[in-house]
């Protein structure tokens, strides 16, 4: 199973995302932002980091990278895409996911182990979880506050497109405790916390993050 991991200038957690794919039993393929080459991957992960230093707006410049045109194109035809942290920001800036991520309400970067509630266990990236399950994975960002106009948030909730919510404290002031959302077809998922940092007992707060990567392998097989 070929799972692509894109490296943009300033991507940081690309090595971690690739490791998580490998630990889940997949084959991580590194993709370069400036190529127009998705290398026949079955799904794509946009990793965390500070693409282009997060200058201008987090994810804004990376969203205009050449490879993103291919990602948008394939995603609209059903290819699964996961955006983690900076990757989520890129997906919002690229218009693949609704809303925007802005400066944390307390104005600080915050890194902590975060409890999330899985709201949708039927997306391409979450089918190994149970709906309502609580998982602990790290959150670490300075611009992770999910915002959209109220009407848009209502619509998003009405369409059941919130995939994760923060519980036990909202780390960044996100509207309605939203930690992650999905596209209408459940194939594109973005979230601020980092499942790829919770895949080994030795280095993470839990191994709760592995489910993302085992889920996608199944989703790809069944597709």
């Amino acid at each position, binding site marked *: 199973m070929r799972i692509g991991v894109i490296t943009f200038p300033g991507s940081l957690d690309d090595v971690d995302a690739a490791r998580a794919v490998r630990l889940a039993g997949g084959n991580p393929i590194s993709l370069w932002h400036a190529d127009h080459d998705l290398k026949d991957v079955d799904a794509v992960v946009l990793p965390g980091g500070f693409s282009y230093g997060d200058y*201008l*707006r987090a994810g*804004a410049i990376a969203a*205009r990278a050449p490879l993103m045109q291919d990602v948008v194109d394939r995603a609209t035809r059903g290819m699964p895409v996961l955006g983690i942290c900076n990757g989520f920001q890129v997906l*919002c*800036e690229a218009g693949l996911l*609704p*809303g*925007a991520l*802005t*400066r*944390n*309400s*307390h*104005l600080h970067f915050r890194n902590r182990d975060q409890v999330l509630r899985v709201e949708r266990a039927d997306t391409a990236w979450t089918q190994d979880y149970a709906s309502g399950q609580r998982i602990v994975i790290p959150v670490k960002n300075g611009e992770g*506050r999910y*915002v*959209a*106009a*109220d009407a848009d948030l209502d619509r998003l909730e009405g369409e059941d497109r919130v995939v994760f919510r923060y519980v036990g404290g909202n780390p960044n*002031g996100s509207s309605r405790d939203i930690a992650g959302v999905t596209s209408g077809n459940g194939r594109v998922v973005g979230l601020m916390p980092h499942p790829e940092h919770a895949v080994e007992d030795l280095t993470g707060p839990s191994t709760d993050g592995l489910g993302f990567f085992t889920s996608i392998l199944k989703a790809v097989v069944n597709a």
Partner: protein
Amino acid sequence: MLPAAPGTLVGVSRVVVDVVLKPEISDPQGQAVLGALGRLGHDSVRSVRQGKHFVLEVDGTPDEAELKQIAETLLANPVIEDVELHLPTD
């Protein structure tokens, strides 16, 4: 175009783009400034909103349509921000 200001290269114009958060989007940075002003006794300030201010130097006469597109699609995120484009007055 007016004659270039002293020190400005001839044929280069200065375009300013201000980007502000839409009124319905909360602005913690502006809030923090307002809080600090209150603590320092500047009670006459009622609200503060913080946005971005871009100064672009453009070759030749600015192409308004192009700059509008730059401002609206790259410099601002239309989901949460509004832009004001200020071309040099000529």
